[in-house]
């Protein structure tokens, strides 16, 4: 295709994607009709509670879930104009690591405990990038250096157990960067780390992204991270995106009551000590048995009769790019009250 079309085309376009798990207790609707686009070099934040389907979404995009028939897929994952879901397993393997790479939540468990750090990086370089062992070792040391770990040559010979959590996550990032991917999926990359390390890891991710013009999907449950490190944001609830827009827009004008509730449930530094958190009442719905109507209605303080029966579409107000799925969006309510 002509270069200008390739440039204007989004890097990733997810169209009406479904991932359902066929379990003995019924079908779990983990990802239930999700669409979004992501341009080169941009960062999309995907935010939601545990069990909202964020991780399943990321694992569906990079296609590492089971293909033994227990997971049902539908929809398209267009990556540079190709539908990844149409690719054979062999073709998809060419995409993983090289085009799309992933950083997992817990660096304590995502590195193989019985393989040296060096080997875990060089196997990507040797098997996927076609390097020989010697140049792969040099490149691995460069990568280790670029993620801010001192004494790179020595680190290559060490095992994950010799490194702290933050260091391990840096190694995991180095592994992901080894294949020079165009898209990096970071699935809660800082959740398992302590707070001072979190900012370092996120800053590292941002630095690498800018240097490589890489797109990033940053999955998190932390709106503070979203506001600091993403360009766009998608809020997920019970397998669906319920609000999607630019990050600044979301922070300034959330429309979906769930987004507002998430914001209110986060502690603020300005709160006096022992302030009760404004937690969202109840639990996210069981994905085996999602409620009729809006999936958030049971926990929504603005719910009306219509919310109980009709599922709102993800739509925009007029011409704006701020999409939300709600019958009673927030600003409208604010105007009505005033």
């Amino acid at each position: 295709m002509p270069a200008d079309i390739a440039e204007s085309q989004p890097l990733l376009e997810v169209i009406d994607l479904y991932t359902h798990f066929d379990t003995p207790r019924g079908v779990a609707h983990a990802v239930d009709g999700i669409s979004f686009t992501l341009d080169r070099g941009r960062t999309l934040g995907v935010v939601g509670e545990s069990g909202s389907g964020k991780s399943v979404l990321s694992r569906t995009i990079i296609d590492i879930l089971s293909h033994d028939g227990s997971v049902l897929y539908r929809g398209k994952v267009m990556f540079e104009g190709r539908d990844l879901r149409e690719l054979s397993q062999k073709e998809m393997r060419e995409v993983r690591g090289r085009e799309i790479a992933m950083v997992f939540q817990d660096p304590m468990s995502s590195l193989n405990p019985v393989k040296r750090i060096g080997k875990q990086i060089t196997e990507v370089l040797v098997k996927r990038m076609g390097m020989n062992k010697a140049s792969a070792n040099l490149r691995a040391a460069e990568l280790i250096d670029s993620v801010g770990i001192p004494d790179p040559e020595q680190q290559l010979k060490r095992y994950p157990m010799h490194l702290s959590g933050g260091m391990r996550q840096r190694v995991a990032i180095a592994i992901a960067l080894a294949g020079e991917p165009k898209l990096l999926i970071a699935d809660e990359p800082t959740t398992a780390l302590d707070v001072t390390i979190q900012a370092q890891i996120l800053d590292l991710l941002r630095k690498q992204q800018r240097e490589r013009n890489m797109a990033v999907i940053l999955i998190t449950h932390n709106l503070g991270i979203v506001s600091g490190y993403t360009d766009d944001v998608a809020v997920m609830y019970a397998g669906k995106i319920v609000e999607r827009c630019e990050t600044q827009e979301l922070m300034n004008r959330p429309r979906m009551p769930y987004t507002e509730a998430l914001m209110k449930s986060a502690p603020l530094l300005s709160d006096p000590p022992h302030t009760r958190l404004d937690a969202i009442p109840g639990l996210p719905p069981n994905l085996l048995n999602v409620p009729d109507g809006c999936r958030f209605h049971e926990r929504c303080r603005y719910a009306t009769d219509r919310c109980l029966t009709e599922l709102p579409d993800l739509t925009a107000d007029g011409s704006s790019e701020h999409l939300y799925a709600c019958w009673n969006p927030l600003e409208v309510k604010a105007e009505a009250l005033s």
Partner: protein
Amino acid sequence: MNYFKAKILHLVPVFFLVTFASFMMLNLLPGDLVDAILLDEESSVPSAADRAALEKELNLDKPVIIRYFIWLGNMFQGDLGRSYINTQPVTEALALRIPVSLELMIMAQILAIGIAVPLGLISGYKAGQPIDRGISAGAFAVLAVPLFIMGTVLIWIFAIWWPILPSSGHTDFAKDAWGNIQGFILPALTIGLIEVPVLMRVLRTDLISTLQEDYIALAKSKGMSTRYILFNHALRPSSFTFITILGLQLGNLITGSIVVETLFSIPGVGKLLIDAVDARDEILVQGVITFVALVYVGVNLLVDLMYAVLDPRVAARGA
């Protein structure tokens, strides 16, 4: 290094306990050794003087506990005594038989691992699917077969129905290497096949849990092939129970080799033990048991050391 020292220290009392217990139990056997030897040599009833002389020669006039310590002291100098029957040094008898049994055991283990690892990996990777159910059903069937039946069936298949392998006998390796290996295939396969079901099942179980690990998902997300992930990422962390069982089964292997060496007429340590028991050659029996205990203890040490090789965290954690 402390890990290894501690492991070695653990095994010292085991060795003493085994040799002591076997010595005492042999001593408890009914019948009189002196009578047995003298009656064998002369047809007439032995005189009291002959009896006393032989008793003195064999130290049988001393209490059993003293005899144990005499034997132990000699053992540490590499002297396991002489056969009561033909006065061949026990160490010499063992030295002739050990290479044969060792070859049998090594071949049996290679076959067992060679069959169990691929089956366990396929079974664990395809857990719950028809191929896994088929393999498991086959494994349970084999598990139910006793060693001597397995050996007989293999002889029937590969020596009679489709005669490609010898059913018995032993060829010297130096004279005919291929003939020697051929002779070992069926007996080794007999022992190996008996081991496969348990080995394969434990590998399958451990693999299923390893495949749930994040580092397997990470390996997939790096674009590694399934075969590479199974062999290079999942096999090592999944093989702890496998290695343990492999060590434990060595006990079965030794007893198994007694049956198999008899069945296939292989002049190994197992056959030596059976013949010694038949002849009431107590000192030879004691020597074989000591050797077997040494092997057992050594293999267990090796298994412990293997843990540290399989997972560097074991050695770091210490004993």
